[in-house]
C-alpha cells in the first residue's frame, strides 16, 4: 500500500515519538528495577516494614528419662509510657469511676510483688527528665500469670518486652551439675560446658509490612535470618534417684556437721552417672541460697586426700602383679617406722597375724604399706593412673580437677610411697573414686565416666555422644577376688554394724582421710565409703564422701547414708537379690 508523502512523514514522526517514549520508560524502568532497586526497596521496607526478632529457643537439659532439668521459657518485662500514664476512667452502670494512676500502680505492684511508690517515683523521674518520655521499665522477668493479670487490668499505657529466659523446674535437683544462666549468659556447669556445641540458640529476624492499624499485610513476611534452636542435652542422671541421693546426703551432712559432701552413683556396665550429688545443693533458680564456692560440683572440682578407699586400687595392684592373694599372710604391727617416718594403724595394737583380706577388713595402714614394697613404685604409680587418678575423668566437667598423684613413681618420696597406699599424700575427686570402683565392679574394665548421653538436635541428629570404649585396668580374676575380700569390710569390719543393705552382698571400703591444713595434718577428717553391689555380679557403684564433719571422725558414720543410697539404687533398678553366700576369705591366721 502506498501513502502520500505527507502521510508517511506523519507516520514516521509518530513512530519516533512512540519509540522515544518507550525509550524513556525503559531507562526509567532499568533505573528503578536494577540500578536503585536495593536502595529503594530498603527505603520502602523502612517506611512500611516492621522488623521483629524471631527468638531461637535455647535447648533443654533433660535427665535420662527426658524430664526437663533446665527449660527455656518466655518472660516479660513490663514497660510503661510515662507521658501518658494517667488516671483511668471506667463506666459502670453509667456511673463514672476514676482510678488514679497511683491506684493503678498499686494494683500492678500487687501482682509483680514490687513497690508501688517506687514505680511512681520511677515514672515521675522519667517525666522530670523529659516531659514527653514514653518509655520506662518497671519490672523485669514476669511470668505468664503476671502478664495476664496485668493485661486484665486494662491499662492503656503499659506494654511488654518479651525476653527469653531459663527455668529449672526441679530446683536444686542436679543443680550443681546443670549450672545456671546469669544475665551475661551461661555461668557454670553443663549450661556453660555445652553452651557453644549444643544448647546455644541464635535469634533470627523477620520483616513484614503492616497496615496503619497494626495488622500484618498478608504475604509480606520476609524472614531475613532464620532463628536457630539449640539442641536438647540429655544426661545420664535419673532425677528421682538424684533427689533421693541429695536428700540423704544433705540429711547426714547436717547431722555430721560436714562442711560439704558429695555422693555418686555409677552404673557399672557403662560408666553412666545415675546420680551425682553435692551438699550444699544449689538451686539454679535462686543461686543466692549457697556460697559462691558451692555453685559448681565439688564431686568433680575438689580433690581431697581420700584415705583408705585407696586401699582398693592398692590391693588391686598387688593382686594384678601376682605378689599377693586374699590369703597372703602378714605379721602386721600397730605402727611401722620406715624412712624417717612412722606409719600408724587407726587403732593401737601389737603385731597381729592378718591376711590381705584381714588387712583390708581392718583397714590396716601398716599392712598395706609393708605389702606395697613387693611392687616397684613406678608400676604402682602406673596402676593408679590406669584407675583414673591424676587425670580428669572423661566427663571433663567445668572446673574439674585432676587431683594429684605425682608425675611418676619416682616423685613419691620415701614416706609418700607408703602413704599413697592408704590415700594420703595424694588427692582424688569423688568422681575419680567412683570411676575406680566402677572398674572394680565391671570385672576390671574401666568405662569412660559419662554424664551426657548426647545432644539431640531438632532435626533428629545426635552429637556429643560419649565414648563407649573401655580399658582393662585389672585382671578379671583380681577384681573378683578383690570384691570377695571387700565383702568382709561390710560383713565383719569395724563398721559392719552400720552397713544395712538387706538381701545383697556388698563390697565396700571405708576411708578416713586426714585433712592437711596449711601443710600439716590435723584432727579434721574426710570420711568416705565406696563400694559396689551385688558383689558377685555388680551393677552399681556408690561413693559417699563428707569433708570435715564436726560431729564424727569415724568413717563408720558414712556407712549409714551409703547403705540407704545403695539400697535405694538396687531397689529402684530392680536388681535381683544375692543368691550366693559371701566368699568369706579368712582374715587372720
Amino acid at each position, binding site marked *: 500500500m502506498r501513502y502520500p508523502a505527507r502521510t508517511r512523514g506523519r507516520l514516521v514522526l509518530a513512530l519516533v515519538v512512540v519509540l522515544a517514549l518507550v525509550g524513556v520508560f525503559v531507562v526509567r524502568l532499568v533505573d528503578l528495577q536494577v540500578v536503585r532497586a536495593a536502595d529503594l526497596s530498603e527505603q520502602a521496607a523502612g517506611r512500611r516494614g516492621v522488623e521483629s526478632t524471631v527468638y531461637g529457643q535455647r535447648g533443654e537439659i533433660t535427665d535420662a528419662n527426658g*524430664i*526437663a532439668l533446665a*527449660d527455656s*521459657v*518466655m518472660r516479660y518485662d513490663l514497660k510503661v509510657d510515662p507521658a501518658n500514664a494517667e488516671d483511668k476512667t471506667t463506666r459502670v452502670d453509667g456511673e463514672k469511676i476514676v482510678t488514679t494512676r497511683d491506684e493503678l500502680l498499686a*494494683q500492678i505492684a*500487687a*501482682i509483680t*510483688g514490687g513497690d508501688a511508690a517506687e514505680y511512681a517515683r520511677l515514672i515521675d523521674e522519667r517525666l522530670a527528665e523529659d516531659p514527653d518520655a514514653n518509655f520506662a521499665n518497671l519490672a523485669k522477668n514476669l*511470668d*505468664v*500469670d*503476671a*502478664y*495476664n*493479670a496485668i493485661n*486484665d487490668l486494662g491499662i492503656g499505657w503499659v506494654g511488654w518486652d518479651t525476653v527469653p529466659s531459663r*527455668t*529449672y*523446674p*526441679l*530446683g*536444686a*535437683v542436679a543443680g550443681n551439675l546443670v549450672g545456671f544462666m546469669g544475665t551475661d549468659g551461661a555461668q557454670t556447669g553443663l549450661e556453660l560446658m555445652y553452651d557453644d556445641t549444643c544448647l546455644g540458640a541464635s535469634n533470627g529476624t523477620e520483616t513484614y509490612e503492616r*497496615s496503619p492499624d*497494626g*495488622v*500484618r*499485610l*498478608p504475604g509480606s513476611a520476609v524472614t531475613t535470618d532464620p532463628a536457630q534452636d539449640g539442641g536438647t542435652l540429655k544426661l545420664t542422671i535419673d*532425677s*528421682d534417684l*538424684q*533427689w*533421693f541421693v*541429695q*536428700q*540423704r546426703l*544433705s*540429711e547426714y551432712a*547436717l547431722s555430721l556437721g560436714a562442711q560439704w559432701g558429695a555422693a555418686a552413683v555409677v552404673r557399672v556396665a557403662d560408666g553412666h552417672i545415675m546420680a551425682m550429688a553435692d551438699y550444699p*545443693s544449689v*538451686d539454679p*533458680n*535462686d543461686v543466692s*541460697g549457697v556460697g559462691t564456692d558451692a555453685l559448681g560440683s565439688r564431686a568433680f572440682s575438689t580433690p581431697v586426700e581420700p584415705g583408705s578407699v585407696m586401699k582398693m586400687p592398692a590391693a588391686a595392684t598387688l593382686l594384678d602383679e601376682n605378689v599377693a592373694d586374699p590369703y597372703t599372710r602378714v605379721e602386721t604391727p600397730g605402727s611401722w617406722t620406715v624412712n624417717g617416718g612412722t606409719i600408724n594403724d587407726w587403732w593401737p595394737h601389737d603385731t597381729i597375724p592378718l591376711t590381705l583380706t584381714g588387712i583390708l577388713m581392718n583397714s590396716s595402714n601398716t599392712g598395706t604399706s609393708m605389702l606395697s614394697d613387693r611392687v616397684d613404685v613406678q608400676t604402682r604409680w602406673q596402676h593408679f593412673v590406669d584407675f583414673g587418678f591424676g587425670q580428669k575423668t572423661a566427663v571433663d566437667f567445668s572446673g574439674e580437677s585432676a587431683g594429684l598423684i605425682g608425675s611418676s613413681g619416682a616423685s613419691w618420696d620415701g614416706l609418700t610411697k607408703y602413704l599413697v597406699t592408704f590415700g594420703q599424700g595424694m588427692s582424688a575427686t569423688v568422681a575419680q573414686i567412683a570411676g575406680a570402683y566402677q572398674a572394680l565392679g565391671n570385672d576390671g574394665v574401666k568405662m569412660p565416666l559419662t554424664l551426657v548421653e548426647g545432644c539431640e538436635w531438632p532435626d533428629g541428629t545426635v552429637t556429643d555422644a560419649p565414648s563407649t570404649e573401655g580399658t582393662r585396668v585389672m585382671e578379671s580374676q583380681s577384681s573378683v577376688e578383690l570384691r570377695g575380700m571387700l565383702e568382709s569390710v561390710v560383713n565383719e569390719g569395724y563398721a559392719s554394724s552400720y552397713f544395712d543393705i*538387706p*538381701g*545383697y552382698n556388698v563390697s565396700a571400703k571405708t576411708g578416713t582421710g586426714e585433712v592437711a591444713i596449711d601443710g600439716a595434718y590435723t584432727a579434721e577428717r574426710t570420711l568416705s565409703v565406696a563400694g559396689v553391689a551385688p558383689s558377685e555380679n555388680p551393677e552399681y557403684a556408690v561413693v559417699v564422701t563428707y569433708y570435715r564433719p564436726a560431729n564424727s571422725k569415724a568413717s563408720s558414720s558414712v556407712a549409714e547414708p551409703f547403705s*540407704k543410697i545403695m*539400697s*535405694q539404687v*538396687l*531397689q529402684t533398678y530392680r*536388681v*535381683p*537379690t*544375692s*543368691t550366693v553366700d559371701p566368699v568369706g576369705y579368712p582374715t587372720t591366721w
Partner: protein
Amino acid sequence: MSAAPNLRRPIAPLGRPAAPERPALVPVEVAPSRAQRRGRPRPFYATVTLGGVFAVVVAQLLLSLVVSNGAYELSTLASDRAALNREEQQLRERIDVYGSPQNLATEAEALGMVANGSSAVIWLSNGAVEGNVSAAEPGSGVVGSHGNLVANSLLAQQAAAAAAVGAATETPTGSEDTPETATAAGGAAPTMSGLPTPATH
C-alpha cells in the same frame, strides 16, 4: 443531493445541461463479500470483552476484600495462638514444678505414704522368695525427719504468685486469701494439702 437516487440509472438534474464528461458522484456501496461480512466487528464480542474486563475488576475487588478480611482473621488467630502458647507454657511450667521429685515426695509423705527400704524378689522359675521380706514401718517416709533439703524456689514462688494473682484479680483490696481460694483464682491445679510449700534449708 435531492431525489432518491436510482442506483442503476443515474439521471442528470433538470434545467442544466449535463456535464457530459463525468458522471455525478453517487454513493455506492460494494456488496460485502461473505468474508467481509464475517470480519465486521459485532456488538456481541464487544459486550463479552467489556463484560469480561468488568468481571475481572469486580473479582479483583472482591478478592482483595476477602484477602484483607483474611488478614484481620489471620492477625486475630496469630494473637490467639500467642495467647494459647503462653497458656501452654504456663501450664507446662506449673506441671513440671509440681512434678519435681521434692514436691512429689513431700506430698506423698503428707498423704501418709511410706517407703520400704528392704527388697525381696520372687523367682518365677521355682517360686522361691529371696531377700528381706518385711513390711514398711509407719513413718518411714522417704523425706525424713529434716524435711525436704533439696530446695526448689519455684515451688514457693509458684504458690506466692498464684496467691498474688488471685488476690489482685479477685479481691483488689488485698484481703487474706486462703491457699485454696488463691489456687482456684490463679487457675493452679489443686493439690491435696493446699499449695506445696516445703520447708527448705
